[in-house]
């Protein structure tokens, strides 16, 4: 009895202490939230709005910042030409076709990997995503050798097999541009949707099946419909990225007269005696306006609908047994891997051991390219810088993206829409133009702020460029998690931060891991801003690769590309085997 009384007193004391603690936390929460929101808005303004304002100035001023000139609308008036209408049609057409095809293929592959009993799904998941991580300049070179009309390996093999002198494929065409872009879009979208497929309560599909729907009807009306936030996000991200794509068009389009917005901007900035920044930035803002319309459409499509699939109820992933068909799905994945990875990477790997790319003669066998890269001090310095920026940048970006996504999807706080827009802005501006915005913006900062010419300049640009992806990845995952789990956590006494960490982040962890990898390798590949912001001593890999490429050393670029691929395999292995098993059980 005495001990029971003591225990009761102790509990009351504990509760009182907790209440007192909660009251002070509540005060902190009450005053801290507006302060936090203000800080978040200011940070996003600096990262995305500030360079955009610099660019807007550039589009409305006859000269770039720092040179006397006048404000006018010449940049905008100048883009209304027939030539630019064709460019716009090309850009939208190419991006739309490639995004539709890539989305269909990515959803199919994600379904195969996440929801069927196809053999070797774990390995297939890694293999399917590999093309995304290969520098586009390398796959473009490989495909130029494989698919050129005159002496491309595929056409030579076709002529030898068929005895005809016709051409089977020609990468220098609209089809070539679409195909090259698809190699990046498909794994990109796949990475977005595969975890969403996994995080789906099969009860919904089972209900559909029990109500008499066919497997196809269930896939289309339930599975696909529930995936709308993820698929539309991926579609829009990929479509916008397609509009801003440069490498595919410049390699395979420009030689046959196919111009897109980015090649036109590139022409305005780098191919004229007097760079025309006003025209380039005006064209970019016109493209931005178009892309903004897309976002509005997505919002209208998703507004008022619920896409919750992860609830408080337990469930186990539903795997569709395909029987013999599983070998067909296995074949589809392998075919994708062969076409997008084995062929181009095989060509790169092979070429890295010969003196010249594409010349496979015994007397040209060499390890010189590996030795040259190994002994290149610039490469190692850039490697260290890139690793540092990659790890720090991806982590900071995911942290920022996770917070922004939380505010925009899980709260009704004032200012959340502004935050959403601010986080999106960098994605809607072509990288080569945004790089100029960063250059202008960072250079004019007071000299006491040590950003320009340091690694900070690169880090901040990378965080800004990666935030839209981080936000989309995490917000799509958040949207699948029912609010009742969160409320349950809060009711049981967990604080906001605890709930964020123990519930939302723990449940959305696979998406965080995917986002981190996407951003890390985005940083490794980023060139447009890097070339304008690096200083002696802060070189990054993409800059070193550009130097090798322009310096006539594509074989050394291949070696660096292969090193990056090994890193990808390592990261993906860690992500899939270690993180998912150990950390997702937080």
């Amino acid at each position, binding site marked *: 009895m005495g001990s029971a009384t003591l225990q009761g007193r102790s509990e009351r004391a504990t509760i009182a202490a907790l209440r007192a603690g909660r009251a002070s936390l509540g005060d902190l929460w009450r005053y801290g939230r507006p302060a936090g929101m203000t800080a978040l808005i200011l940070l996003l303004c600096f990262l995305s709005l500030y360079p955009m304002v610099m660019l807007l100035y550039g589009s409305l001023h006859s000269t*770039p*910042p*720092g*040179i006397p000139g006048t404000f006018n609308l010449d940049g905008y008036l100048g883009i209304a030409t027939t030539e630019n209408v064709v460019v716009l049609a090309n850009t939208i057409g190419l991006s739309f076709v490639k995004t539709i095809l890539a989305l269909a293929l990515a959803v199919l592959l994600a379904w195969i990997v996440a929801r069927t009993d196809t053999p070797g799904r774990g390995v297939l998941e890694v293999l399917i995503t590999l093309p995304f991580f290969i520098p586009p300049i390398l796959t473009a*070179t490989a495909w*130029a*050798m494989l698919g*050129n009309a*005159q*002496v491309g390996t595929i056409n030579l093999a076709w002529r030898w097999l068929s005895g005809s002198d016709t051409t089977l494929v020609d990468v220098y065409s609209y089809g070539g541009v679409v195909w090259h872009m698809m190699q990046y879009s498909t794994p990109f979208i796949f990475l977005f949707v595969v975890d969403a497929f996994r995080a789906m309560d099969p009860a919904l599909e089972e209900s559909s099946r029990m109500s008499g729907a066919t497997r196809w009807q269930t896939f289309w009306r339930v599975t696909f419909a529930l995936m709308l936030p993820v698929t539309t996000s991926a579609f829009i991200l990929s479509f916008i990225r397609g509009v801003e794509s440069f490498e595919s068009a*410049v*390699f395979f389009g*420009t*030689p*046959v007269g196919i111009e897109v917005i980015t090649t036109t901007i590139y*022409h305005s*900035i*780098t*191919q*004229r*005696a*007097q*760079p025309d920044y006003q025209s380039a930035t005006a064209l970019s803002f016109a493209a931005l306006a178009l892309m903004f319309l897309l976002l509005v459409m997505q919002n209208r499509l998703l507004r008022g609908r619920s896409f919750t699939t992860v609830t408080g109820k337990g469930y186990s992933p539903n795997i569709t047994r395909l029987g013999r068909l599983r070998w067909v799905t296995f074949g589809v994945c392998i075919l994708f891997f062969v076409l997008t990875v084995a062929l181009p990477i095989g060509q790169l790997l092979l070429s890295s051991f010969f*003196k*010249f*790319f*594409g*010349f496979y003669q015994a007397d*040209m066998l060499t390890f010189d390219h590996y030795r040259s890269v190994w002994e290149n001090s610039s490469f190692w310095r850039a490697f260290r810088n890139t690793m540092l920026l990659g790890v720090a940048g991806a982590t900071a970006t995911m942290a920022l993206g996770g917070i922004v996504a939380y505010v925009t999807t899980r709260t009704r706080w004032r200012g959340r829409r502004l935050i959403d827009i601010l986080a999106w802005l960098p994605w809607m501006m072509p990288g080569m133009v945004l790089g*100029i915005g960063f*250059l*202008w913006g960072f*250079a*004019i900062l007071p*000299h006491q702020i040590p950003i*320009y*010419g340091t690694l900070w300049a690169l880090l901040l640009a990378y965080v800004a460029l990666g935030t839209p992806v981080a936000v989309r990845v995490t917000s799509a995952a958040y949207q699948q998690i029912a609010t009742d789990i969160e409320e349950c956590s809060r009711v049981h006494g967990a604080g906001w931060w605890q709930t964020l960490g123990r519930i939302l982040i723990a449940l959305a962890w696979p998406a965080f891991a995917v986002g981190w990898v996407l951003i890390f390798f985005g940083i490794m590949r980023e060139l447009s801003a890097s*070339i*304008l912001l*690096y*200083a*002696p*001593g802060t070189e990054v890999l993409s*800059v070193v690769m*550009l*130097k*090798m*490429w*322009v*310096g*006539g*050393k*594509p074989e050394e670029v291949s070696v660096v590309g292969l090193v990056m691929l090994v890193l990808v395999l390592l990261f993906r292995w860690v992500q899939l085997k270690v993180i998912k098993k150990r950390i997702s059980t937080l």
Partner: protein
Amino acid sequence: MLRRSVLGLLAAGSVGPAWAQGDDWAKVVDAAKKEGKLVMYTASIGSVFHKAVIKSFEQKYGIAVELLEARASEVRERVRVEQSAGRFLGDVHHNGSTTTWLMNRDGNFQPYGSVPNTKNIIAPFSASNVVIPAEVISYCLMVNRNLVKPADEPKSWKDILDPKWSGKILSDDYRALGGGAVFFVVMYDTFGKEFHEQLAAQKPVFSRDLANSERRVARGEFPLYLPFSLQNYNNLKGLPIKPIVPAEGRPYVRFDLTMLKNAPHPNAARVFMNHYLEPESQLVFANAGYAPVVGGVVEKTLEEIRGLLATKAMGTTTPERQDAMLELAKQIYK
């Protein structure tokens, strides 16, 4: 006019860097060593020959060179925005003559004072008080030896107008800054507009991926490439290609050295410029296929290069009419 020139010179003198007034070169070298380093902005990306000259400079003087490499327009924009923001980070600027001319017009440079080796510069090149010629890129034709028999090789630039080359020419784009634009201007000046109208009818395929273009020809996608930069020949040795300088000569474009405004290491910059014009440095470039700008170097170059460099320098582009010529190229090559 004379008054304005005198005032200009006086003004140039007043904004000059703070080096020893007596201009005793030994004192300049000592001051340079005390500065200890210099920062060079260059549009020559990934050039091993450039690095070889830098290395020899570092070894000779113990002055470290920090290199910032980017494309011509990117270098120009960086310098412009840095200087307008009051950031004076670079010392030596190295870029094509057109970009250098534009930047000089915009006031991005300062007079370098005196550099002893400028006296060795040979015609048609000459140094001003701001701009020093550095090396020269020469352009010619390149053929695939497996696809073009010696008898069929073009001997004159006009030979590429033969219908047998129709659809078989891979080319740098004449409508954009670079070797293609230089070729366009020089051919226009030499043969007139008709040359280009006939060449347009040959339907040349344009590509801006220069390094890859040369390899595409080597692999047999196209038998003929132009304009081929001679300095790339070294990188392609062992491939079935052959550079050909036609009878009329070779178009060229000059790279220049300048001192950036308010350079933090002006003495090191001067010593570097002087080193760049040393016959040994120029020989490194000449052996790589660049035409040297000082006398007595061509004679010492490797035999296979000497013959190509000894050919006539046909002409080059001029910055004043660059945009007009690019526009004309756009009209002809649609």
